[in-house]
């Protein structure tokens, strides 16, 4: 092991490096809230976001070790083996056992990360209360995660340039076209600001009416593309009453992509029911006014009876 011999004399230096690594890596061990958004993703709004966050942190620790190990060797090499200090280079072409060992080591790290991911996956995919195992859930995004207790709220999220529309509580017709059911079943809807009851598992059906958008509220879990022609699904359960979560469209969708934002406001279930009723009443009142205006315009002659100008 001629190649490794200098390592022995660098033990002191590597100890120094270890201290350095600890000094830099130490803050990684701080509580998530202090660093969320700096070296870890946002979380704390919903169990799936928290699960993603903890998975991310495991990878982060492994990554930090690999990074400091490689950079440590690199810096040591540059420091110790400059021509001035080390005039004669060692003429070797390789070291099969060392190479095999490190390759297997790298593979081993990745196997561990893969296992950790699949162990963590159900807590990210499955809505709470769900009895369905990960294998019964075909997809994170193609099949709706339904908690069997039935204690859930379904909201249809429809993306369009450049606003999100939310249609609440689709009930049994949940797989139908969101716009149609909103219209025919006179479901309440809102734009940009979504209101949800605290502690209730919310299923989201995500659709698009024009180009591809992506639904994303970081603290409430990962993002899901809204692709025209497809319905995708995700879920969250926000427990903190009064919390407001920000998000915005993550897929380039046109010139005002930057302004396609979303707000999720968490109310107590009671307040939420009140809000839904008032929203429904408001929509009905507005529809009534529009119908009146339409009749007026038809009588006036500026609209045909089919509603064209």
């Amino acid at each position, binding site marked *: 092991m001629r190649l490794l011999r200098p390592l022995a004399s660098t033990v002191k230096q590597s100890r120094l490096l270890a201290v350095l690594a600890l000094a830099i890596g130490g803050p990684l061990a701080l509580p998530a809230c202090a660093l969320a958004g700096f070296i870890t993703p946002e979380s704390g709004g919903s169990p799936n976001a928290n699960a993603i966050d903890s998975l991310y942190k495991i990878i982060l620790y492994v990554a930090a070790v690999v990074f400091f190990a490689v950079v440590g060797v690199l810096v040591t090499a540059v420091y110790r083996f*400059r021509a001035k200090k*080390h005039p004669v280079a060692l003429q070797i072409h390789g070291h099969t056992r060392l190479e095999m060992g490190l390759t297997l080591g790298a593979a081993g790290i990745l196997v561990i990360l893969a296992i950790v991911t699949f162990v963590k996956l159900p807590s990210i995919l499955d809505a709470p209360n769900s009895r369905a195992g990960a294998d019964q859930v075909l997809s994170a995004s193609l099949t709706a995660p339904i908690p069997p207790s039935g204690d859930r709220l379904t909201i249809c999220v429809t993306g369009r340039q450049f606003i999100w529309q939310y249609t609440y509580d689709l009930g049994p017709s949940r797989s139908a076209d969101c716009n149609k059911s909103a219209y025919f079943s006179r479901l309440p809807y809102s734009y940009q600001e979504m209101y949800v009851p605290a502690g209730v598992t919310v299923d989201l059906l995500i659709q698009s009416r024009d180009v591809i958008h992506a639904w*994303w509220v970081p603290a409430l879990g990962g993002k899901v593309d809204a692709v025209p022609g497809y319905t995708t699904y995700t879920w969250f359960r926000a427990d903190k009453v009064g919390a407001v979560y920000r998000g915005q469209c993550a897929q380039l969708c046109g010139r005002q992509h930057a302004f396609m934002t979303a707000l999720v406001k968490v109310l107590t279930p009671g307040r939420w029911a009140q809000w839904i009723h008032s929203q429904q009443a408001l929509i009905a009142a507005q529809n009534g006014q529009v119908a009146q205006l339409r009749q007026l315009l038809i009588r006036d002659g500026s609209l045909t009876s089919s509603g064209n100008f």
Partner: protein
Amino acid sequence: MGTTDYALRPVPQILVHEVRGQRTTKKWLDWVLTTDHKKIGIMYLVLTFVFFMLGGVEALMMRTQLSVPNNTLITGEHYNELLTLHGTTMVFLFVVPVMAGFGNYFVPLMIGARDMAFPRLNALSFWLLLAGGIVFYATLLWHPPEAGWWSYPPLSSRQYSPSGGQDAWIFLIHLTGISSLVGAINFYVTIVNMRAPGMTWGRIPLFIWSILIYAVLLIIALPVVAAAVTMLLTDRHFGTHWFDPTDHGSPVLWENLFWFFGHPEVYIMILPGFGMISEVLPVFSRKPIFGYKAIAASTIVIAFLSTLVWAHHLFTAPLPIVVLGFFMLSSFLIGIPTGVKIFNWTATLWRGSLVMTASLYFAIGFIVIFLIGGITGIFLAVFPVDWQLNDTYFVVAHFHYTLMGGAVFSIMAGTYYWYPKMTGRLCNERLGKLSFWVMFSGFNMTFFVQHALGLSGMPRRIYTYQPGMGWSTYNLISSIGSYILAAGTLMSVFNFLRSYKHGQIAGPDPWKANTLEWFTSSPPPDNNFDTIPRVRSVEPMRDIRREVERQTGVLQKTGGSEQFART
């Protein structure tokens, strides 16, 4: 005194005699009509550096817009145009063809050939690239495309992108695609058929391995994107509905086709850079490359795996979970051969005798930066984590660490290394090192904070943002960093321009390098070599130096750094 005075000492060399063909009196016509691989290579390099500058200016404009919240400098429309121009320019008009430029110049020289296999086809490659660039940049006079370099439909469909800019983009993909395809076939044929006697597959330089694999990947990936953009074109103008969801078409089909091309493209852009690093490190470590076979094999394995990982760009798209799992594992797998390379490069430095030239600075900087880009790639490969990070600035940081840090730093290392061969003059080493430190710090300042931006929820491709989101400070740091990075890049560009007239004369082999391009004069004559030596190892020039030493008794030190000693 610089580290390069040894170059002026008389050293016995086997030189070539200039053979000049019939020349026209007009010098510019000489360049237009040339089929000489070296001239074409130079034209490639100059043209792609011009596009690099243009793409850089576009990047600076975007960073300026983002430096403060609610900035009104650039509108959403122009910002989208800029990001499309920047991405498309850097990918199709800079990184891919700049590698072809280096390949053009150095493949024949490194394998001991007198030209490429098909010299006229080679010229066609270059002129098609220029045509693609002109078609694309001409849109500045009308409406540049604004659907991003992925151009996902329906946003890129006629309904949402009615301007001809999108069609110009399609035309650019076709023109540069044919250019690269023709070039790739040329590289493949040249490398397979025209190697010097004795240069078996186990003895070809690692840069040649990487260009060979680059060519194979281009041949695999380019037809797919050519088909995809043709389908987009017929969707836009001839009434088909491949990607039209209102008529049973699927935007996800485009996503799959595009990234089936797009991910091998990533390795098309970086593998030749890996090759350059594998040439530079052993020369300046005065030590053979550590694990030649492992590096060559890992290049092949990366290329193979790169065709099996495309859907990791689609983790948030409607795909079954089992598909996501497969693509997570395949993306993990590609980390292993990449890790092998990083390990072998580090081990090449270990116990070497490092001659700290600007080229080596860039090569070592490359390893550090690419290591970070590789590690963040593992984060993104874990699909549940990707659900948080996809389409955010974390991804922007990741691929700039691999492409800007990876490809550009290796290109810089390669340029400082080969500049004396191409021009006959040495660059200013001190300015080169200064440029490295400015670029390295500017680069990390620009892109490291972008990880934090993505983690704190900033999506990509937004042209402005509100104050109070926690993004303002990071964005300002990043924007300042981008100007430092630009300043560092300009230092090197200035260095290259100035050294062309004022650099020290380099001589045929200033670095005491290992490969055959150093066997001829600098710059090489039209015919490259008078005689082509028989190759007996992966380091033919070392063998030749040793042979000269044996015959003349003049010491041709190769294992130490004597010839680099300061006077």
